[in-house]
Structure formats: structure tokens, C-alpha cells
């Protein structure tokens, strides 16, 4: 590296250290969001340039002379060498979901600092490393999936445990995402109308693509986008209409029922009719809004209103209970390290890499960009007044059911807010109330609306942007629900087909209906539980989702460690063992506390015991509902325990393999596809 280059990179690294130190040590009134942006961008750049390059060159030995599966197995469909920039965008679109947007908003209850540091450090040293190594491993193994690699590298027990873990994680994830949508839309005719309108719009798009203009997906998506924008405009009039508004003013339970029915229909209907057009539309809107948010933050440079730490680092938080360690680190999964990414990194992407060297920007770089999305979400949430943030995100079971009670409780915590402030804010946003809108989506939408709407905008503009943000979040969460239900159905049919062959046939309608109903019932059960929960549901379901997602990261890091051991023995094993140890420490501690903590707000079993005592003493309000809550708390404890056991089994199995490799008794052969000289020229792409 030339002297000028060295000086430049030293300046970037110093800027990262200065800004990170600045946000960690500054204790003034408010901090400009640009500090977070510069800290994150400089840390990512340094991590990418040095750590990423070290992994690419020294550890993994990426070799552009070696033909990739995309070149060797080229079929024009799944296996196709792709321009690295296009593949970067494709991979980013696949990994970026609602997780990096919602997780940081919820974790902001600890203040902006713990979450921000975890997002930046976790991504550079953990998340990006996991994504990159799994992508590399899959690329060197003809695009094999994580499950296949777990089976091959660790053993059959590990492979089976990974399969069950993925299914369980999907069920928990679908329920918690559905709960976020329910909490964003309950009692909101404007939001509900907009989202309801996306269904006929998607069906119109499906029919247009199938019969009117086959193959014109971009043209069709542009029409779909224009119709969705029109629906947002019309939503205001629907909400103000005395005749129409009641049709779209739905309770949480009715919305939950509607989403459950939607999930079932989307799983059973032909993909081209609803799922595919919604998927296209959601992907384009998602990428566009993320870019808009980035530009908006740079232009507006909002000040962070939340402090670096709040009193809730002690575990008494209203949004979810539990101390900053371990709960901050499982609340923010996507954005720092997400096990789910390993499924994408061993899915479509490895089959599209043209040259091995492209795995560095695609695997490592795309994760850093997703991490930056999480930083933007943290900024958007922290630009709200702390009192407003807690009033929107706290459940009535904690702060009180009336505006007066809620504002009094929150103000007593040291975050002043009045019922009048909240009423004005709700009017600006075009909502009846913004109290107890748990789940993170409404507070993120408020923050985004503040950034998007020019200063001094009236209610019409703020209301439009608030509902635009709600539409954006709900739309792509619903695409995850419909796609996830369908994937769950395939996985279940695949398993049931081993028992009775017809059940495995994806075209046999009774099998399709039975498997779809089973998957929908599984996540629907958790969704209804979340809706009924007086603590808002997020308190129990989001940690369960975070734990399960990061347990999957532990599985991926076990596979990555095994591969590094086979390649280099102990020399580079710290690269995956350090994040693995951290992820195991946080998830196992969190899972243990969620099951066995003596505090009813934290531990599922303590919560069940507390409710049972109330039931016996006759102090529980509704006996039937309380019995359901007791059952749910125990079910959550069982799910958490099963996940712990499964990942514990994979860990033990992995350690057995590692000891075998190091002792010379185990199979230490690297199971890569044979070397074939590449003849592909990058200019062809």
C-alpha cells in the first residue's frame, strides 16, 4: 500500500475511533446523529478493508482462477455468473428484512449507546464473518445449503437438529412479525385500508403479468407502486369517513385472524397470483425506502433525543424486561449477527458468484450495509422525545390503560410527556391514538415521518409519511409471512412425506391444505398469545425470536469453525470461535433467564406461577384468559428449552468432531468440489 493510501486508511480508522469514543463518552444534552453515521461508516470501511481482506486472502484463500459453481454448473436459471454489483444488491435485498429495523427500535429502551456499539462491533467481527464464511463454504461445495453442510461436516444428529431448529425459528419469527403488523394497524383505519388495498393490487399485478403483459415485471411493479401510493392518499379520506372508517377500524384480535387467514391463502394459492407480485413490489419499495432514509438522515441530520443509557439497563424496561446483558444482544439480531443470513448465504447467492473474489464484497460487504440500516433505524427511533418513545412502545399492562395514567407513569420515570402532546402527535399522524402501539413499527414510522417530512410540514404531510412508513413495514413483513408459511409448508410436507408418500407431494391438494393449516396454526397460536398478553406480547415473543435466530447463528458458526479447523487446524479458529462464544454466552444466558428467572416479568415459569397464584386467590380478572396465559407461558418455556437442547446437542456434536480432528482420529478432509480452472472473463458479465 502506498504512503498516501496508508495515511488515508489511518485517518478513516482514527475517525471511527474518535466518533465511537465520542458517542460513548459524550454526556451533553443531545448528540447529532451524524456522529453515529460517521462512526459506523468509518468502522465498516476499516473492517471491510482490513479484516475482510485478511479473511479473503489469508484465511479462505479466495482464488479467481478457480471456477465457481455458477461457471461450472451454469444453467441460465439458478446457476448463473452474475455481475458482482448486481449480486451484491440481490444478496442485500434477500438478507435485509424487518429485523434490522424493528430490533434497534426496541433496544433503544436501554438508550442509544449499547445497541449502537453492538450493531457496529457485532457486524464487523461477527455477522459479516459468519455470512462471508458460510457463503464461501457453500460456494466451494456447489451451493450446498446450511443443513446439508451441517450434516456433512458435523454429522447426522447435527443435521437433524439444524432442520428442526430452522422450522421452530420460522414459526416463532412468523408469529412475532405478524404481531408487529397487528400492533401497527389495530384501531388504525388509514393503515388497515392501505394494507388491505395491497391485496387486490397484488392480485391485479399477478393477472396483468400472467395475461396482459407477460414478463414485464418492472412495468407492472411501477403500476403497482402508483396504485399503492394512491391507496395511501385515499386512506386519509377513508379514516375520516363516518361510513367507511368503522369497516377498517379493527381490533387486534380481528386483525390477527385476518393475517392468519391471509397466511393460509397465500400458502395454498398459486404463487403467481399473490405471493410473487407482492414480493416484487415489496423488494423495490424496501430498497427505495432504505435509500431514502439514508439520504434523509444525511440531509436532515436529526438530533438524538434519547440519552446514551436509560435507567432500564437494570432490567426493569417497559418494552421488554431483562438487563442490558444479555437482552440487548438478542433483541438486535439482524443488523449485528443473524443466523437466518446463513440460510441465504447458502441458498441462491453462492450459485450466482462469478469469481471467488466477489464473495468478499457480497458476503462481508452486504452484511455491513444491513448493519448500517440498523443504525438508521436506531437514529430514527432516538430522534423521538423519550417520553413519546416510551408512551408509544409501552403496553397498558405496565404503564396504565388511560392516557393520564400512562403519561403519569412515564413522566415519573424521568421522561416527561403529556396526554396533550400525545394527542397532538396522533392528530398529526392521522391516528386516533398512539398510546401502547407496541412492536416498534409505529415509533419507527414516527421517526421516519419526521425525517421525510420537510420542517414545518402540516398534518397532511406528516400523516402521509407516517402511513407511507407503516405501509412499507407492513408490506414487507407480510411478504415474509406468506413466503415463510409456504416454506414451512414445504418443509413439513417433506418430513411428512417420509411417513406417508402422498403427503409429500406438493401438488396434492389435501396435503397442501393440511400442511398449510398446520404451519399457520403453529404461528397463529403464538400470535394470538401475543395479542392476548397484557404485557403486549413483544415482551415474551421478541426475546424468543432473538434467542432462536442467534441460536441458528451458533449452528452456522459451528459449521464455519469445523471448516476452518479442517483448513488450517488451530491457526485461525479464533475468527469464528470468538463470535461463537459470545453468541452462546448471550443466547444461553437469555434463554436460561427466560425460562427460570424468578421475576415474573422475565421468566416464563415464574410468570405462570404468579398467574396461578392470582387465579387461586381469585384476584385474576378473567379466569379463562388467565388459564390461557398460564398455558402460553409454559409453552414458551418449553419452546425455549427445546431450542436450547437442540443447539446444545449441535455444540456438543461439533466439539466431538473438533477434538477428533485435532487428535488425528476424526475425518479432517476438506469436502470441497475439485479444482477446475476458470475460463470466465469478468468483462463478459
Amino acid at each position: 500500500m502506498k504512503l498516501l493510501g496508508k495515511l488515508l486508511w489511518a485517518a478513516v480508522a482514527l475517525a471511527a475511533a474518535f466518533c465511537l469514543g465520542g458517542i460513548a463518552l459524550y454526556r451533553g444534552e443531545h448528540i447529532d446523529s451524524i456522529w453515529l453515521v460517521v462512526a459506523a461508516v468509518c468502522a465498516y470501511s476499516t473492517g471491510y478493508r482490513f479484516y475482510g481482506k485478511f479473511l479473503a486472502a489469508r484465511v479462505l484463500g479466495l482464488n479467481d482462477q478457480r471456477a465457481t459453481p455458477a461457471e461450472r454448473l451454469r444453467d441460465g436459471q439458478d446457476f448463473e455468473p452474475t455481475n458482482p454489483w448486481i449480486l451484491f444488491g440481490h444478496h442485500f435485498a434477500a438478507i435485509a428484512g424487518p429485523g434490522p429495523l424493528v430490533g434497534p427500535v426496541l433496544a433503544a429502551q436501554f438508550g442509544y449507546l449499547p445497541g449502537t456499539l453492538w450493531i457496529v462491533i457485532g457486524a464487523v467481527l461477527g455477522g459479516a464473518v459468519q455470512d462471508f464464511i458460510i457463503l464461501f463454504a457453500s460456494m466451494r461445495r456447489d451451493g450446498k445449503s446450511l443443513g446439508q453442510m451441517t450434516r456433512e461436516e458435523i454429522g447426522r444428529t447435527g443435521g437433524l437438529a439444524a432442520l428442526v431448529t430452522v422450522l421452530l425459528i420460522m414459526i416463532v419469527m412468523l408469529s412475532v412479525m405478524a404481531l408487529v403488523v397487528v400492533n401497527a394497524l389495530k384501531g388504525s383505519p388509514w393503515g388497515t385500508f392501505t394494507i388491505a388495498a395491497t391485496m387486490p393490487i397484488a392480485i391485479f399485478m399477478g393477472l396483468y403479468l400472467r395475461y396482459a403483459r407477460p414478463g414485464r415485471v418492472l412495468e407492472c411493479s411501477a403500476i403497482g407502486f402508483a396504485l399503492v401510493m394512491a391507496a395511501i392518499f385515499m386512506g386519509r379520506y377513508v379514516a375520516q369517513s363516518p361510513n367507511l372508517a368503522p369497516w377498517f377500524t379493527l381490533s387486534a384480535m380481528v386483525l390477527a385472524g385476518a393475517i392468519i387467514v391471509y397466511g393460509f391463502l397465500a400458502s395454498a394459492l398459486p404463487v403467481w397470483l399473490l405471493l410473487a407480485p407482492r414480493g416484487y413490489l415489496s423488494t423495490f419499495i424496501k430498497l427505495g425506502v432504505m435509500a431514502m432514509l439514508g439520504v434523509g438522515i444525511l440531509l436532515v441530520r436529526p438530533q438524538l433525543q434519547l440519552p446514551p443509557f436509560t435507567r432500564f439497563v437494570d432490567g426493569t424496561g417497559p418494552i421488554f424486561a431483562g438487563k442490558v446483558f444479555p437482552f440487548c444482544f438478542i433483541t438486535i439480531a439482524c443488523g449485528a449477527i443473524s443466523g437466518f443470513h446463513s440460510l441465504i448465504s447458502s441458498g441462491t447467492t453462492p450459485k450466482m458468484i462469478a469469481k471467488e473474489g466477489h464473495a468478499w464484497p457480497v458476503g462481508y460487504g452486504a452484511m455491513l450495509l444491513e448493519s448500517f440500516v440498523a443504525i438508521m433505524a436506531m437514529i430514527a427511533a432516538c430522534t423521538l422525545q423519550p417520553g413519546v418513545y416510551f408512551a408509544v412502545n409501552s403496553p397498558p399492562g405496565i404503564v396504565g390503560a388511560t392516557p393520564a395514567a400512562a403519561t403519569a407513569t412515564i413522566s415519573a420515570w424521568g421522561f416527561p410527556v403529556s396526554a396533550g402532546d400525545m394527542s397532538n402527535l396522533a392528530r398529526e399522524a392521522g391516528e386516533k391514538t398512539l398510546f401502547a402501539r407496541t412492536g416498534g413499527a409505529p415509533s419507527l414510522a414516527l421517526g421516519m415521518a419526521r425525517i421525510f417530512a420537510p420542517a414545518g410540514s402540516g398534518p397532511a404531510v406528516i400523516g402521509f409519511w407516517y402511513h407511507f412508513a407503516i405501509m412499507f413495514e407492513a408490506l414487507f413483513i407480510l411478504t415474509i409471512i406468506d413466503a415463510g408459511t409456504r416454506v414451512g409448508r414445504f418443509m413439513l410436507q417433506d418430513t411428512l412425506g417420509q411417513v406417508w408418500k402422498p403427503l409429500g407431494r406438493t401438488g396434492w391438494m389435501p396435503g397442501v391444505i393440511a400442511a398449510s393449516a398446520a404451519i399457520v396454526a403453529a404461528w397463529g397460536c403464538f400470535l394470538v398469545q401475543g395479542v392476548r398478553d397484557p404485557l403486549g406480547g413483544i415482551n415474551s415473543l421478541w426475546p424468543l425470536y432473538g434467542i432462536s435466530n442467534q441460536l441458528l447463528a451458533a449452528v452456522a458458526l459451528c459449521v464455519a469453525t469445523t471448516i476452518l479447523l479442517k483448513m488450517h487446524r488451530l491457526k485461525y479458529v479464533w475468527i469464528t470461535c470468538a463470535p461463537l462464544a459470545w453468541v452462546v454466552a448471550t443466547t444461553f444466558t437469555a434463554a436460561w433467564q427466560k425460562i427460570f428467572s424468578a421475576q415474573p416479568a422475565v421468566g416464563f415459569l415464574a410468570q405462570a406461577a404468579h398467574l396461578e397464584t392470582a387465579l387461586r386467590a381469585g384476584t385474576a380478572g378473567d379466569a379463562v384468559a388467565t388459564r390461557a396465559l398460564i398455558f402460553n407461558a409454559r409453552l414458551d418455556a418449553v419452546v425455549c428449552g427445546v431450542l436450547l437442547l437442540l443447539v446444545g446437542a449441535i455444540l456438543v456434536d461439533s466439539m466431538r468432531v473438533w477434538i477428533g480432528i485435532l487428535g488425528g482420529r476424526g475425518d479432517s478432509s476438506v469436502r470441497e468440489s475439485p479444482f477446475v480452472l476458470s475460463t470466465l472473463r469478468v468483462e463478459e458479465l
Partner: protein
Amino acid sequence: MSRLGRLGRLALALLRELADESAYQRRLKLHGLKGSPEEWRRFTEERYRSRSTQPKCC
């Protein structure tokens, strides 16, 4: 071509890839076919079958 023009072409290529339009064109080229409603249906049925077994990330 100017840098802005190249960036625009790259963005359009990304959108076409995300929209499966590029994959459809590759398929037509690979098999020497002409685009038609029937061919698009066959393509999407295969495409969606393989894609719908892969989860979307959270």
C-alpha cells in the same frame, strides 16, 4: 459513457435481475426460444417452485 450513465445502467440491471426479467431473457437465449405468454408461464412456474422453498430473511 459517463459515470452517471454507467451507474444508471447498473441500477437498471439490478432491478431487472430482482424482477426476474434478466433470468427470463437468459432462459430464452439459452434454449433459442422466443418470448410468449406460454413461455413466461413455464418460466415462472419453474422459477417460483425453486424460489418458494427458500425462506425470506427476517
